[in-house]
């Protein structure tokens, strides 16, 4: 049964949710005595108005693409991976070990090695909760939350102890060697006397993130494994009946998810900081949840939502510099986006569905019903992954 056209499901509902989140954010800004319209203008010009702004926006977006894809892949198997934060932190550990202890001849190889290290460490950190979910029925949400804290404690221990070079005060590893420094946007796009992206952290990892989007799309929609993951997400019972192993799907989807979250570390650790610092993730793992929800768990949606959140982050930083609105306003907006696109999805969806139903009813005798049918075999993305049953 089709309740509304596909464009409404994919574009209209998220757009209304976003507008609602924006409206309430505007009210909050009004309430603290600032002008929301001015704030919006500052945010947009601060986030997309120059190559400098884009250099930050795309840097943040790169982080969010990875963590968003991580949450999205898990969503397809109806797993809620809330542990992106910890997996990304441990991914950073993987990057640091690879960059510090292997003598790389060239940055291209270092990038490959770091990618591998980040993905392996991230996947390993997700593997334990996945195994406990698959084999012991421990709720994946609770275990991944616990693993976030355990990861934080582990890094805390390593960065004030074994990995910290003697004689420094900062809780960080030694700087990575010169040969592991990957090119920034400035190195890539400046030519002659025109220097673009001056002093910004965006780097080549952005293209790795784009590649990850394509690969995830291929995996989920064009491979047998992706089909199994989606089938499992739609109906665990039916998938089991069709001979799809629950353990395999839970393990594979969660480890892929962990690997993607871990990959974030090549952007912020190898690309930007060029050493592993404490608390380097800064909530990006959680923003992945908002990004995946807004992007409807589709790589293209994730990419767009990640750039939007990149704009929000860079714009928010600009806002706190020039107005009395603290940076935490971004966290409020992020919370509202998660609330409206995730938890309150039905609040927006139900009236829209009713609207379309009424319109169709009225138009039915004269015209054929709207362009409503799904293309066969193309199912809508599960909109709100319910809790996995233990």
């Amino acid at each position, binding site marked *: 049964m089709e309740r509304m056209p596909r464009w409404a499901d994919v574009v209209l509902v998220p757009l209304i949710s976003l507008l609602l989140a924006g409206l309430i954010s505007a009210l909050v800004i009004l309430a*603290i005595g600032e002008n929301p319209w001015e704030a919006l203008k500052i945010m947009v010009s601060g986030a997309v108005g120059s190559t400098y702004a884009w250099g930050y926006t795309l840097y943040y977006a790169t982080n969010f693409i990875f963590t968003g894809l991580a949450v999205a892949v898990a969503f397809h198997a109806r797993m809620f991976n809330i542990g992106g934060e910890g997996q990304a932190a441990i991914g950073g550990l993987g990057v640091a070990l690879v960059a510090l202890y292997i003598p790389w001849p060239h940055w291209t190889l270092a990038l490959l090695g770091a990618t591998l290290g980040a993905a392996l460490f991230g996947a390993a950190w997700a593997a334990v909760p996945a195994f406990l979910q698959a084999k012991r029925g421990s709720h994946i949400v609770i275990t991944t*939350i616990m693993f976030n804290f355990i990861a934080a404690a582990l890094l805390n221990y390593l960065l004030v102890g074994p990995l910290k070079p003697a004689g420094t005060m900062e809780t960080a590893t030694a700087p990575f060697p010169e040969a592991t420094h990957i090119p920034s946007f400035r190195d890539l796009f400046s030519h002659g006397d025109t220097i673009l992206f001056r002093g910004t952290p965006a780097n080549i990892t952005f293209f790795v993130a784009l590649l990850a989007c394509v690969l995830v799309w291929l995996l989920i929609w064009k491979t047998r494994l992706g089909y199994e993951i989606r089938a499992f997400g739609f109906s665990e019972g039916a998938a089991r009946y069709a001979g799809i192993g629950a353990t395999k799907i839970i393990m594979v989807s969660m480890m892929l998810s962990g690997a993607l979250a871990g990959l974030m570390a090549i952007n912020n650790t190898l690309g930007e900081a060029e050493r592993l610092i404490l608390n380097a993730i800064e909530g990006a793992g959680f923003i992945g949840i908002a990004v995946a929800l807004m992007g409807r768990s589709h790589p293209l949606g994730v990419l767009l939502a990640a750039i939007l959140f990149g704009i929000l982050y860079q714009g928010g930083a600009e806002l706190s510099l020039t107005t009395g609105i603290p940076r935490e306003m971004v966290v409020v907006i992020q919370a509202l986006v998660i609330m409206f696109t995730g938890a309150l999805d039905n609040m927006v969806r139900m009236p829209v569905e009713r609207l379309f139903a009424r319109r169709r009813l009225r138009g039915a005798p004269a015209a054929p019903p709207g362009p409503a049918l799904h293309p066969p075999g193309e199912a809508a993305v599960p909109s709100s992954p319910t809790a996995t049953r233990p």
Partner: protein
Amino acid sequence: MDWTTVLLLLDSTIRTATPLLLACLAGLFSERAGIFDIGLEGKMLVSAFLAAGFAFTTGSVWLGLLAGIGGSLALSAIHGLASITFRGNQLISGVAINFLAAGLTVVAAQSWFGEGGRTPQLGEGERFGAVILPGALDLSELTIREQRELPPLTALYSDVLSGHSILTYIALLAVPLSWWVLFRTRFGLRLRAVGENPAAVDTAGISVARLRFAAVAIAGVLCAIAGAQLSTAEPAAGFIRDMTAGRGYIALAALIFAKWRPYPALGACLLFGFFQALEARPDIFVRLFDIRVPSALLSALPYLLTVIILAGFVGRAIPPRAGGEPYVKER
């Protein structure tokens, strides 16, 4: 290792366990009714901020507590609206509530007090002071030497059990009260039933939504008291950003550790409170066992223990059966 150190440790165990216990009981009511509540952390945080803010502005700590309860209940209402009325995902709603609290408290504190996301120092009458239990000595009136020379049991009573804020005693009393409400009243029976088999409750003609909203509201009030304890009970003297620091999640861990039962929840919270007390005083650990344990290990212990419990290696933790699933009336 002397008696004074033990007393010191136990005293701070009870103090740090108080917010954990209240939040844990909040989670107990909510999850027993079938509503997962990841948002304990956010509700505590909002209450901690409002309690301190209003206590400072009005000069009355009780008005502060009331404001905290109001704020926490508002978040509970949002959670209920999302997860009961609109049958949304309870986990996502909880995550959103935590972020909303983390962001709004700082934004509001900055605009209200302009001190970088904190409230001003609270003074006399704006905080919950120490309650001296009957027969106990007021230690603040004794010199250190006199304190050291007290008989051990007197010291235990006066130092460890007496001298906490009224909120600590409310938390301790809430344990038997929660047990009684959940296991000895009709409301409690229905509340537990709605978390195990909502369809059966519905068939009996009782509103599933109303019961779940009641449970979520109780959770809101308990979280509010937990938050107020953090910011307004001595020795705390005001709100600072992110002051809950993951306590909502430790409370969730304690809830699983206690297998969703009130008295074991008390035990679990005291244990996790003890870890936190040890973490704050690494020197004591060295003196006790003559080894240096990294404080990171101590801070990770509650989570590690919970994962082990969850894995079912030490008894199995089985959550309420209908937990996390919205109830759809018409089939």
